[in-house]
Structure formats: C-alpha cells, structure tokens
C-alpha cells in the first residue's frame, strides 16, 4: 500500500489548498448587498455585489450593449460611473479616448460591483429587454442572405426604425461560449410582436454560420434590444440612403415605417448595390413601393451584371452610381446621407458624399461591422 502515500499526499495538499481558496473566496468576495443608482435615482437596484457590472445589470433586466458578451474585446459596454471606483484598468484603456477617461466612462464588463454605485446610462437602455422568441420563418433571399423572422409571443418591442438587436448565439460545435452579435431590425416598428433580421453568411462567422446551418423554424432564440441611434432625422432634407447586401435591413424598416405613417413628403433616394443578379432581393417589393410613393426613388445597381443584357438598371460600383446621381440627378439641395454596409463601403460612400459638398455630421451610420 506504500505506493498510495505519494498520490494521496499530493492530493490532500492540493485539495486542502483548493478548499482554502474556496473558503477565502466565499468570505473575501462577499460584498453583501449593494445599491446601484442609475441616472440620479431614476432607478435603484438592490443587488448582491461581487459580479461584474455588466452581468449584474443584465440580471436585473438592464441591458448595456455588448457585442462580445463581457469578455472585454469589443468596448461597446461603455457607461459613466459617477462613484469613484479607482483608476482605469489596463483592460479598459485600449477602448477609451482621453476625453472619455476624463469623463469617468468605464467598460461595464470590467468593473466589479463592490460597493454602492451611481451610474449614468442613456435613457433608451431602460427600454431594452431580453426577448425569448421562436423562429417563425426563415426565407432564403439570395444564395447567402436569409430573412429570419422571430415571433416574441406575448412580449412587445418598441423601437424606432433603424435600431438593432443582439442575437444570442448558444454554444455549438467547436464554439464553447455564448456569443452575441448585433443585427439591424428589418421589421416595422408597427409590428410589435415580431423581430425580423437579414443575415448574410460570412465565411467563418460564428453567428452567421449558426444561423445559416443550424437554425430552424420553430427553434427558440434569445434576442436583446433594441439598441442604437441610427434613425431618420426630424428634418426635411432629402434622404440619400446607400446599402449593400444585408445592409438592406434598417432601410426596409425605415422606408416602410415612413410610408405607413404617411411621412411621404420628404424626398428619399435609396441606392442598393449588388454584384450580380443573384445578389439582388426585394426588387419587386421596393419597385411597388416606388409606384405608390412618388417622392421615393429606388436605384438598384449591379457592378457585374451577366452578359445576357436583361439587366435594365444602373451598372457600375455603387459609389460611382451615387456620385453620378448626386451630381446630375439629385442636384445641390439640403441632403442627408444614411449608410449601412461594410466598413469599406461606408468609408467609400463618406468620401463620395464629402466630395459632393455634404457635411460629415449630416451622414449617419451604425459603426458596427
């Protein structure tokens, strides 16, 4: 039995220390009950201390946007903490500007709730909820874009057209973590019991691969939202909207919302860029909308139409088409730019807009990729 002495000794020493660590952890990391005061007494939460601020808030039903789910890799969960919680951590610094640091902006996922806190978040976030929905319908719009319609049952969602939600992706296959990804809602604000998203398959993308290969009609999905301040402005300037691929989503919502609300006095131009015929979708719907709404102009453009000559619309890169229309058709008037697409496209369009004399602060887009 002598051979047992060594392993047992090691095991008991390691076990003893493990027990010590968990006992210390239990006592030392017990911060008791703390109060979180949000937006100067607008809401007071009594919670247990010890967790990160992000998870503490979400367990109380307040969802600060976070694309990475609290791992400190996206920098989205910024909030202003009025209480002094010590200097900025090295994990926060890369995501904050000097002004933000001076203004006590912190990353909620890196701050541990240890004492009573006072913080400030945008009021809209009170409206953010976690919805447990069911996939009602998945439609293949093109070879790589799916329209996903989620029924949120009894719950209702209130949002301005153009807002986005975070889709919660459960662990699957080799992906061991829960992930969250942001998608613009393409559903209309008037339909409060559904959330619709357009999801394009990104090769290697965690969420898009899941949606395209595993998600089925009838599945349960979690969605958190609404977030974002991408919405139409309250002016009378002409709206110049540019989108490509699944960037269609917010404009589908905004355009139908305006039409439904009879907000049709404003001049709206919608440029939609695609590569070939098979990348186009909603063509008929938008042309029908154009018929009924005289101030709305839909301009689809293909950069590589097939050689049969059937394509009657614009050809060329969307930026070239946009440039030509800005100079020759739309002309010089009060204009606002609205963009949704890849960072590269947003950059290129920003350049076209500014070259045509538009101010950068009159150009709106969500800066998530």
């Amino acid at each position, binding site marked *: 039995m002598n051979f047992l002495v*060594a392993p047992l000794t090691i095991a008991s*020493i390691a076990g003893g220390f493990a027990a010590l*660590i968990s006992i*210390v952890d239990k006592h*030392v*990391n017990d911060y008791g009950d703390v109060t979180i005061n949000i937006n100067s007494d607008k809401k007071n939460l009594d919670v247990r201390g010890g967790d990160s601020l992000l998870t503490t808030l979400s367990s109380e039903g307040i969802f600060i946007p976070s694309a990475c789910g609290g791992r400190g890799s996206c920098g989205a969960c910024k909030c202003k903490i009025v209480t002094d919680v010590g200097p900025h951590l*090295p994990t926060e610094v890369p995501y904050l500007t000097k002004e933000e640091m001076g203004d006590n902006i912190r990353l909620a996922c890196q701050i541990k709730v240890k004492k009573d806190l006072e913080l400030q978040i945008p009021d809209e976030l009170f409206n953010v909820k976690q919805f447990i929905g069911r996939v009602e319908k998945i439609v293949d719009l093109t070879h790589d874009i799916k329209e996903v319609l989620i029924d949120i049952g009894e719950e209702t969602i209130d949002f301005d057209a153009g807002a986005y939600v975070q889709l919660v992706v459960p662990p699957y296959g080799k992906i061991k973590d829960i992930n969250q990804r942001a998608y613009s809602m393409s559903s209309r604000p008037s339909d409060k019991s559904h959330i619709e998203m357009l999801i394009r398959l990104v090769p290697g993308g965690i969420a898009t691969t899941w949606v395209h290969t595993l998600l089925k009609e009838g599945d349960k999905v979690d969605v958190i939202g609404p977030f974002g301040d991408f919405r139409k402005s309250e002016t009378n300037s002409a709206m110049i909207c540019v989108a490509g691929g699944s960037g269609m989503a917010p404009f589908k919502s905004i355009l139908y919302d305006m039409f439904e609300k009879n907000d049709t006095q404003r001049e709206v131009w919608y440029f939609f860029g695609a590569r070939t015929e098979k990348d186009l979708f909603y063509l008929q719907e938008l042309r029908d909308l154009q018929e009924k709404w005289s101030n709305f102009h839909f301009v689809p453009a293909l950069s590589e139409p097939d050689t049969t000559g059937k394509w009657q619309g614009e050809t060329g890169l969307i930026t070239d088409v946009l440039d030509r229309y800005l100079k020759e058709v739309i002309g010089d008037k009060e204009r606002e730019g609205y963009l949704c697409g890849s960072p590269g496209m947003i950059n290129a369009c920003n350049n076209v807009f500014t070259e045509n004399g538009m101010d950068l602060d009159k150009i709106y887009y969500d800066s998530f990729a």
Partner: protein
Amino acid sequence: MAPDIHPFTLLLASIFTSNILLANFLGMCSFISISKDMTSSNGLGMAVTGVLTITGMINWVVLKYVLVPLDLLYLRFIVFIVVIAATVQVLEMVIDRISPTLYMALGIFLPLITVNCAILGVSLFMEIRNYTFIQTTFFSLGSGLGWWMAIMALSAIQKKIANAPVPAGLKGPGITLITIGFMAMAFIGFSGMLIVQ
C-alpha cells in the same frame, strides 16, 4: 543539522552578498521584462517580497511536517509549486478586498510571479541548506528585498540608458543583459564581507 548562522546575518547576506538575482541569477525573465518602468518594478518587487516570505515559511512547514516524515522528498518540486500557486491565489483575493489601491498597483504581477523561479529557488535553497524556521523566514525576506532592490536599481539605470547612445544592435535586452552583468560584478564586491551557504 541546521547551519549555525544568525538569522540577521542571513538576512543581510541574502540581500547583498548572495543576492538571488545577481549572484544566483534566478527570476531573470520578469526582471528583464518589467525593469523598463520604475512604477511597475516597484509593484513587482513588493509582490515578490511578500510572496517569497510567505511561501518560504509555508513550504518549510510542509517540508518538515509532511514531506520528510513521509519520505516524499522527491515530490518537493510539485508540492512547492502547488503551495506557491495557492498562496498567490489567496493573496490576490485578500489584497483585492483589503486594498484595491495596492491591488491596482500590483496589477497582473501578482499572478505572474507564480511562475517566477526565484520563488521556487528560495524554497529549494532552504531545503538543501537545512535552514531552521527562523532562518528560512529571514532568508526568504532577505531574498525578496534583494530582488526588489536589484530591480529598482536596474530600472533606474535603464532610465539613464534610455538617453544614452546605445548601438542599434544592442538596444533592448542586449544592453540590459550587459548592465546586469556589471551589476552582478559590483555585487561580487560584497562577497568578501559575508559568506553564507
């Protein structure tokens, strides 16, 4: 038999004449990488001193009352490492609670020194040299202080070097290693005063 050395002599000896860094060259990796910045050096020195003293004492107890009676001396490496890792973990939690400021100052260094070879080295020296508990305590504390002093000295020298015309090929670790070499030679000067094994 424990060597007949006064604990205070041992303390001075481990700081100066047999400095863990400059005489035994232990704990070099963090020494070289952290010494660029004085504030960090100070934090790391403090952490090393604290952990060294505490783990030295615990390891002595484990050695004398568990490993030697059970004739398991060959397990000392793994047991010492377990003790060091657990101590660092507990220390980190306690410091985080008691003094967030100190916790911030130490930052990532506290978990980092689990793998600092100076810490394990001191425990092994204590075993080879048969120190008593009091001697171990003073030796561990002295080694920690010696390490702290050495890294502060090096980072101060590095500050000077930053403004000196160092040949391109020697910039970074190259000139640092040469500097450490000179420092080690300077410390050998102390060795005539005390010889401790």
